[in-house]
């Protein structure tokens, strides 16, 4: 019987499947970080349990790690205690840790793929909702809570009810300077922040096939912002090429066997999904959010909605509340809106291709007076690669800050944050109230739009910047 990519991975990992009960699902790779794991390890200790498969568990420090070069001053005692607790937990239970200062440290969803841990067909979990990133490899990857982190540490399994499947098909060709970030913002704007709830999304179509692996990760990363726990893209030659030769990827005969297995993963002809959503790539423009959730997004040149566009009710109230928080009026486009801070980084857009794109806009230009620009690589590996290519000099000569790797201003736990009332164009994934610092106001956009806005000090359509 014809099966989808999701069904193949799911069926391959069901340890116990009894009617009327959630499946016991085997987890191939468990990623952990300092913020959502301490209570899970405490739970293990309280029960006298061990980590069942420490070699399938990988830890990194990222959420509260400092990004100021060299100083590496952890922001406060609480953060320091959490980092040191992760170190103790990993030592005690025999888990590989890429600690702060390790040359392989970085954001968990950047480190997993770049070290070759992330592979097609796997089940991957992490106490972090952006675990959906790894679905770009054709692996079933989703965020879990801390109780579930404890379950996986102890049993290498999770209790999961089987989700429904949604195909998001995007055919056609993206226009120049329109990116994967614009695709996913357009998808979320179309289906809404709860549109994917209960579903695993598989992204298909010629525009998805044309994306490189890093762009695919950007798309899958924000699946959770549409409410879907996981996003998937079928593995292909690009996937295999990306994984091949990485530190923890299979090698030799094991590699050949793995590729044979992975080639069977894509959805069979004739397999069906529970629902279908389509977008045309040619019609997607550079997108930007204007409100307080990622579904409040429009093409950057398009007028924002106005209150009058909504019928009275909760949707209108939500719009009005968001406009008050953002200090904006609807009815006109955001182009020209003053910007105080630009943040390029995060598990959404902190990989080398994102930095190259930002650098291509900033090269030979300077950031506007009064605008603070943070460029935060997703990992130490990304940082080294950027420096080898001279991107760091492009950024610093343009007047941007070149930082160490970490989650940084995406979650504002490490001291990198907005001040109340400040406006930021950010390449991260959430524009919730206070997400980038209490009272801060976030416009989510691509690295190209962010860099262009840095240059002008205003929200800018990157396509209108004159050639240097």
């Amino acid at each position, binding site marked *: 019987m014809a099966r989808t990519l999701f069904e193949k991975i799911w069926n391959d990992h069901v340890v116990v499947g009894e009617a009327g009960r*959630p499946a016991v699902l085997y987890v191939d790779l468990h990623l952990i970080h300092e913020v959502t794991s301490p209570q899970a390890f405490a739970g293990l200790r309280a029960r006298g349990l061990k980590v069942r498969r420490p070699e399938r568990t990988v830890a990194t420090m990222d959420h509260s790690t400092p990004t100021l070069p060299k100083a590496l001053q952890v922001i406060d005692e609480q953060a320091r205690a959490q980092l040191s607790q992760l170190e103790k937990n990993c030592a005690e239970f025999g888990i590989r840790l890429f600690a702060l200062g390790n040359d392989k440290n970085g954001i968990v969803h950047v480190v997993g793929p770049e070290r070759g841990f992330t592979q097609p067909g796997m089940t991957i979990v992490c106490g972090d909702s952006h675990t959906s990133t790894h679905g770009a490899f054709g692996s079933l990857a989703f965020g879990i*809570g801390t109780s579930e982190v404890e379950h996986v540490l102890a*049993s*290498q399994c*999770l209790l999961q009810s089987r989700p429904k499947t949604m195909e998001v098909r995007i055919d056609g060709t993206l226009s120049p300077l329109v990116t994967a970030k614009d695709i996913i913002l357009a998808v979320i704007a179309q289906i809404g922040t*709860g549109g994917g709830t209960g579903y695993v999304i598989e992204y298909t179509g010629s525009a998805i096939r044309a994306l490189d692996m890093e762009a695919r990760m950007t798309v899958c990363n924000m699946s*959770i912002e549409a409410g879907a726990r996981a996003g998937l893209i079928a593995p292909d030659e690009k996937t295999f090429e990306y994984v091949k030769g990485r530190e923890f990827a299979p090698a030799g005969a094991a590699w050949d066997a793995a590729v044979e297995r992975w080639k069977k993963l894509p959805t069979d002809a004739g397999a069906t999904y529970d629902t279908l959503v389509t977008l045309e790539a040619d019609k997607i423009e550079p997108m930007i959010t204007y409100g307080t959730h990622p579904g409040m997004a429009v093409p950057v040149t398009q007028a924002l909605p106005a209150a009058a566009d909504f019928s009275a009710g*909760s949707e209108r109230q*939500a719009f009005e509340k968001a406009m008050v928080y953002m200090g904006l009026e609807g009815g006109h486009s955001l182009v020209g809106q003053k910007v105080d801070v630009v943040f390029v980084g995060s598990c959404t857009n902190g990989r080398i291709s994102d930095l190259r794109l930002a650098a291509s806009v900033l090269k030979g230009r300077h950031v506007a007076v009064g605008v603070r620009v943070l460029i935060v690589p997703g990992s130490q590996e990304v940082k080294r690669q950027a420096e080898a290519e001279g991107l760091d000099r492009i950024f610093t000569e343009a007047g941007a800050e070149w930082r160490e790797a970490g989650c940084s201003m995406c979650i504002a736990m490490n001291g990198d944050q907005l001040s109340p009332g400040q406006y930021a164009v950010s390449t991260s994934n959430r524009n919730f109230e206070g997400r980038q610092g209490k009272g801060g106001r976030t416009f989510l956009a691509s690295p190209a739009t962010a860099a262009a806005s840095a240059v002008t000090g205003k929200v800018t359509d990157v396509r209108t910047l004159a050639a240097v």
Partner: protein
Amino acid sequence: MASFTKITSHAVVIPSENIDTDQIIPARFLKVLDKDGLGKSLFCDWRYLPDGTNVPDFPLNYAASEGAQVLIAGDNFGCGSSREHAPWALVGWGIRVVISTSFADIFKGNSLKNGLLPVVVSQDIHQKLLAAQAANPKAQVTVDLAQNLLTLPDGSTTAFPVDSFAQHCLLHGIDQLGYILSFDDKIKVFEAAHSYAS
């Protein structure tokens, strides 16, 4: 895990839609090593003024809200981050039931593991609840998990959907990890059969 059977309580209403976990418990409160003590930071940025005093018109701060065990919120409650600190903070404040027209998946799963019951109701029932609570902030609702029945302040009842396994675990305070570990033999067989998983 604490069991959950039946609760009768007045409710706090925070009617906004898409209340994300960053609002329920902002990220700066996640730098903790245990689960306790988060109740005071629940909805921190909506609840307190910059000087630390209460925002007078925020529902949690109403005198009538004191002691409420039920929260009625707008659609897609708990979207965003996977932080289990969100249910920990709600439970820490005293909430045992959240009623909405829908919940984000991860939040729902996290809640059920912490004795916090997400109750999905129709738009109609939601509107009725909001109206009843607006008329009388001390209006009582009853949530009976064994019967999966919600009793509104006017005495009418409505069934709410609940996953039968989650219901069983909550009613009896069953620890899900213990349940998973009871399949240890099958996990071993699975690992042996999947050479790539060994």
